[in-house]
């Protein structure tokens, strides 16, 4: 028996293993398709500080009854658009994109959009149409298919139009197999939660029955965009150093450290190289494999680096989070809190948390949990998430006089250069100790605020009741004691009742 060896393209690999990216079946696939395209659209707006308008339309194409069926998906945004030479690769070649940098974005694998296209193509064998403009003079329209075996886009048609209205943005449209009936609830929940973390976006969804779901902009304040950054020494491995050595322009190791890593200045560079026993005058080009290992070990064990810089991150901001919650739940009380930046394994992260009470939040007997990571709502496998663990096993709600029967929702958002997902499905956050601690502290902070609010509310209620009680019981005391003491005349209690209010004020 002879084994045959062969090489396959990355597109082919993901085609064979599309479950990895969430394209398991027609129901999950349409959910993933919408999600990936919406996230690309939001990223395309936010990085360029454009207030997002995202329009999603799903049309049933074939008229056969039942599911799964063929649907035409169309997603439009008003983002920055793509350069015309990039368009075919960005949608037709796996492992090509802009998300491989050290920068906070919604997607982390840069794979989702292509998988949506790929799934559409293998289920319907039809082309994908992309229209894009950067707002300058021209609009480009491409009709593409993917050559999966060779991981290359095939351009079937390319048109160029005048851009009279200076429109900018990207439109993508293709046929795909879907089971919308089963996916519907999750899709709507996804859009609703996305609206919570992006209250500055207009999101419109037209479903196959022609129903409009509109999530309107509530604020024009946008979070600061994320910024590309250099790695922190604590998060570096051998491969990273090897690559930097290959591209660096500096001539000695001291400058190498200062140039390519955050939080490394003159003094730190010298001290660190000393610690690692690497000569600071050495040319990076001459460095040996053994020295690279020395450097990496040094970076792991050297404790005097400043913690990773979080200024590159784009958190929601307390106002945005508050606005989003207000908009969707109109609660009686909201508290939000953003923690100071922290870091795990060399990656900075920021935790934001919110708590909302009353209003449209139902009493379910459980605290509702809404989880977000880099502005993406996480909808699946809630019970495996670190936030769930914190809320159910770590926060002592009784301490805040809050019970699971209260109409309560908790919101957690983590933003980071690298979200510590436990699985590729991007559905739940691993319980790294640093992350867990920050979430715990954030939730405690907002719970404290809620607790104060609830106490005050209680207090006012109580004051009203106390006067009632005095008025009820003092006359009885007078009457009973008169009888018991075998007296004729009852004592007058009016002076006591009159003095009561003043007396109580003194006591406070």
């Amino acid at each position, binding site marked *: 028996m002879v084994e045959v060896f062969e090489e396959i393209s990355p597109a082919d690999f993901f085609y064979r293993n599309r479950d990895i990216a969430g394209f398991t079946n027609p129901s999950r696939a349409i959910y993933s398709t919408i999600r990936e395209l919406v996230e690309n659209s939001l990223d395309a707006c936010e990085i360029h500080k454009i207030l997002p308008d995202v329009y999603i339309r799903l049309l049933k194409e074939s008229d056969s009854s039942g599911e799964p069926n063929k649907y035409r998906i169309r997603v439009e945004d008003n983002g920055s658009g793509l350069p015309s030479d990039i368009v075919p690769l960005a949608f037709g070649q796996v492992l090509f994109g802009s998300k491989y940098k050290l920068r906070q974005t919604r997607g982390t694998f840069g794979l989702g959009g292509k998988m949506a296209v790929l799934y559409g193509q293998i289920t319907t064998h039809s082309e994908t149409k992309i229209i894009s403009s950067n707002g300058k003079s021209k609009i480009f329209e491409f009709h593409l298919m993917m050559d999966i075996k060779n991981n290359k886009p095939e351009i079937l048609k390319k048109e160029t139009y005048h851009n009279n209205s200076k429109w900018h943005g990207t439109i993508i449209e293709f046929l795909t197999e879907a089971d919308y009936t089963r996916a519907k609830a999750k899709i709507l929940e996804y859009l609703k939660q996305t609206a919570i973390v992006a209250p500055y976006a207009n999101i419109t969804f037209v479903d196959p029955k022609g129903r409009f779901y509109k999530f309107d902009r509530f604020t024009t304040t946008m979070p600061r965009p994320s910024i590309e950054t250099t790695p922190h020494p604590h998060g570096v491995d051998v491969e990273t150093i090897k690559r930097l050595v290959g591209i660096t322009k500096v001539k000695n190791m001291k400058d190498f450290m200062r140039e390519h890593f955050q939080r490394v200045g003159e003094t730190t560079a010298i001290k660190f190289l000393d610690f690692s026993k690497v000569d600071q005058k050495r040319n990076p080009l001459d460095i040996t494999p053994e020295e690279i290992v020395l450097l990496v070990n040094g970076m792991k064990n050297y404790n005097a680096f400043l913690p990773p810089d979080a200024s590159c991150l784009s958190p929601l901001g307390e106002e945005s989070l508050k606005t989003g919650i207000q908009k969707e739940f109109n609660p009686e009380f909201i508290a939000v809190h953003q923690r100071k930046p922290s870091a795990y394994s060399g990656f900075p992260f920021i935790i934001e948390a919110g708590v909302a009470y009353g209003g449209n939040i139902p009493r379910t007997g459980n605290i509702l949990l809404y989880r977000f990571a880099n502005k993406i709502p996480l909808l699946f496998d809630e019970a495996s998430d670190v936030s769930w663990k914190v809320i159910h096993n770590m926060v002592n709600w009784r301490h805040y006089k809050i019970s699971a029967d209260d109409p309560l929702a908790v919101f957690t958002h983590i933003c980071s250069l690298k979200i510590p997902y436990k699985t590729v499905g991007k559905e739940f956050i691993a319980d790294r100790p640093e992350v867990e601690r920050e979430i715990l502290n954030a939730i405690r902070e907002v719970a404290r605020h809620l607790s104060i609010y609830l106490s005050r509310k209680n207090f006012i209620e109580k004051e009203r009741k106390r006067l009632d009680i005095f008025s009820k*019981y*003092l006359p*009885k*005391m*007078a009457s*009973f004691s008169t009888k018991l003491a075998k007296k004729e005349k009852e004592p007058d209690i009016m*002076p006591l009742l009159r003095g009561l209010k003043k007396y109580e004020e003194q006591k406070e």
Partner: protein
Amino acid sequence: MRNKKSESSIKKKKEIIIQTLQNFGLQIYDQLWNCEFPWTKMPSRSINNIFYDSNLRQYILGDKAVKRSATNIRHIRPLTQMIWTALFANELSTQKKTSTLRDVFYSAQAYEMSFKDQQESDNIITDLETVIGHSREDFNVFPEERSAIFGDLTIEYTLPGYEGRRLNLTSHPDGMMIGPALTNAEFADCKADKVIAIEKGGLFTRFVEERVHDKFKAILVHTAGQAPRATRDILRRLNQELELPVYIFTDGDPWGMHIAMVIISGSANAAHLRDLNTPDAKWSGVWASDIVEYKLPSDKLTELDIKRLHELRKDPRYRGKLWKKEIKTFLNIKKKAEQEAFSRYGLTYIVDEYLPTKLEAMEE
């Protein structure tokens, strides 16, 4: 009949109580008259104010006092309830009527003083006991439970309609109920020379049938589990007024042991009261060592039993040698036995063999 150590005080006691209640009313009345928010002080019954007094051989309350004041929003309702309860108790006593805890609960409604539940009204009764220093039976509030007595003791009723009438307590061989009438009766004549208190009703009937009262010149008292306070009162009076030794037979387990102890040294719950315990009474069985000696049918101690034994070991009332030894034996053998367990040797064995042996040993 033996000489009574002291003149029975039933009538005098009643007069004192009526006066004490009235004084309490007067105190509140005067405070209101002076435009003061009414208040009263009483000894605290919290656990850290309960002490064991080895002279009295019972629990007593310490010096800590609690003030219940109408200035405090949480006190005003219970204070009013207490005044009403005092009024109600005063009327009961004056009219020589009795009542139950349940009656108190309902009677309050006539005064728009509804108690939240039975628990609340029971608590207020206990407060009143603490304030005036007498148990509720003394102001004629009785519980539902009834235990029984049998033996050659003649009592003289003080109850209206029965005043001066006498009855010998062997009249009815099912036993005489210990209710308000018997509790308030004077002891007129007694031929017995000891008292045997028994936890279980079946055994009480057996003792009557086997004529233990006759053979051993004993007054038999059925405690019906944990003895009600009226029964503890009778036991004490038999011991103190008639100088009869009291022997207590219970099940051989921590709970039976504690039934005996409460008769002897009182309970922490009643630390605010006196004259309910009989310090010289003796626990005569079923001991842990009896289980071994008589090879009694037994059950394994439960977790709860063992926990209870460890608690008792730390209890100051259990300092005596006998108690310490028996607790230790229980924990060693990890077994317990009921009084009825002697039936395995025949129904009369307990009377023919066990009881005489025990009484002989106790009298040494």
